[in-house]
């Protein structure tokens, strides 16, 4: 039996973490952060990102949250300012860990299937297509930029050059889109058709996560 929650479980965790961080005061958010870290430890990193990367920008922001109240407080209130900074950093870190857990554990296919299951068939298809087109679009933008640069279009950079760049890029992207439309129609894709059979179903681990969420919320409120 797999212990891995489905997309519903991870979505529940993310929404709970954001709501609890907003609602719980003072040190109570520590309960939420501890629960999230425990889940991450128990389930391991997601398939998409086997090793968590340290993002120094976020370390700097959390550090600033810690230090600014301490520095701005007067001599007498420095300790109180520091504690306030720790509380703010704690709330920030909680939301960040929840978002990271969701982003690293849920794949595009799972999210697409979730949208399909919720009735937003078009959105799931659009996200899947956009995800696959992203490298093509970026390559298209690079090609357009270099083609225009070599022809001297940016010798006098301005609104005219930017407009020409955008018109060329969007025209090329739409031509490519027509090929995708033809391919989808050739495969008989119909956004108005019946829902696909593989809609994700909640698993037992989701119920475990829901129980954890309830217990941690109760503990944080009673503490």
């Amino acid at each position, binding site marked *: 039996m797999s212990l891995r929650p489905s997309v519903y479980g991870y979505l529940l965790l993310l929404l709970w973490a954001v709501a609890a961080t907003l609602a719980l005061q003072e040190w109570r958010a520590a309960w939420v952060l501890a629960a999230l870290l425990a889940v991450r430890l128990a389930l391991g990193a997601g398939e998409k990102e086997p090793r968590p990367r340290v993002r120094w920008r976020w370390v700097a922001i959390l550090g600033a949250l810690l230090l600014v109240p301490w520095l701005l407080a007067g001599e007498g209130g420095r300790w109180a300012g520091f504690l306030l900074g720790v509380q703010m950093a704690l709330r920030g870190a909680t939301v960040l860990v929840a978002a990271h857990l969701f982003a690293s554990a849920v794949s595009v296919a799972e999210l697409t299937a979730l949208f399909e299951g919720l009735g937003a068939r078009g959105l799931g298809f659009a996200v899947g297509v956009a995800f696959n087109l992203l490298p093509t679009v970026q390559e298209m933008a690079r090609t357009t930029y270099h083609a225009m640069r070599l022809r001297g279009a940016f010798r006098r950079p301005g609104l005219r050059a930017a407009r020409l760049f955008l*018109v*060329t890029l969007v025209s090329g992207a739409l031509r490519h889109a027509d090929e995708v439309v033809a391919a989808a129609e050739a495969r008989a894709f119909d956004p108005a058709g019946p829902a696909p059979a593989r809609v994700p179903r909640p698993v037992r681990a989701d119920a475990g996560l829901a129980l954890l969420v309830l217990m941690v919320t109760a503990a944080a409120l009673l503490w």
Partner: protein
Amino acid sequence: MSSARPSRRAARWSVRDLVYIAIFGALWGGLEASLGSYLHVVKVPFTGVVMASLGLLLALVGRLFVPRRGSVAMIGVVTALLKMLSLGGIVLNPMIGILAESALAELALSAWKRPAREAFALAGAVGVLWVFFHPFLTQGILAGQGIVTVYGWALASGARLLGLPLEAVGAILASLLALHAGAGAVAGLLAWEVGWAVRRRISSGGGLSP
């Protein structure tokens, strides 16, 4: 029987609409990944205004090709999800920003029955105005710094960037709001121009060549 019947909601979008929404979402997502990251690293002032203006410009061009209610909001949702899924890591703030900007632009567009130049200008202005209010939500409420603290930061940075004394609160706020709305309106008007130019180019059979 009932499962085979298409719902009214799902029947709204054709395959072409959805692929065009995906294309414009990918264009906005690509812009965020390349120029957005670069501008944030080099700490250019008003990076949020620049990125929101360019993003909404693309989304509004998309509206000309998918002239249905909800298309700009849908492009925003696709971009936000791309940001989360493809760029990895923690991008909650920009995701909230993209969703709010596109939703506000969609709201402004809904006042007109058909796409119009003025609607595009208003949608751009309203969407980019969110950039001014964004820190109040993300840093003031979500991060718990307090709205008054963020208001103080906004005033201080505005005074510094505009070269005004900190006491001129009204002038600083009015200038910042006008700058945001103006940039958005220009983006909206440019979207109208670019959209029609793209239409002309496609209908004339023009290729990828600039």
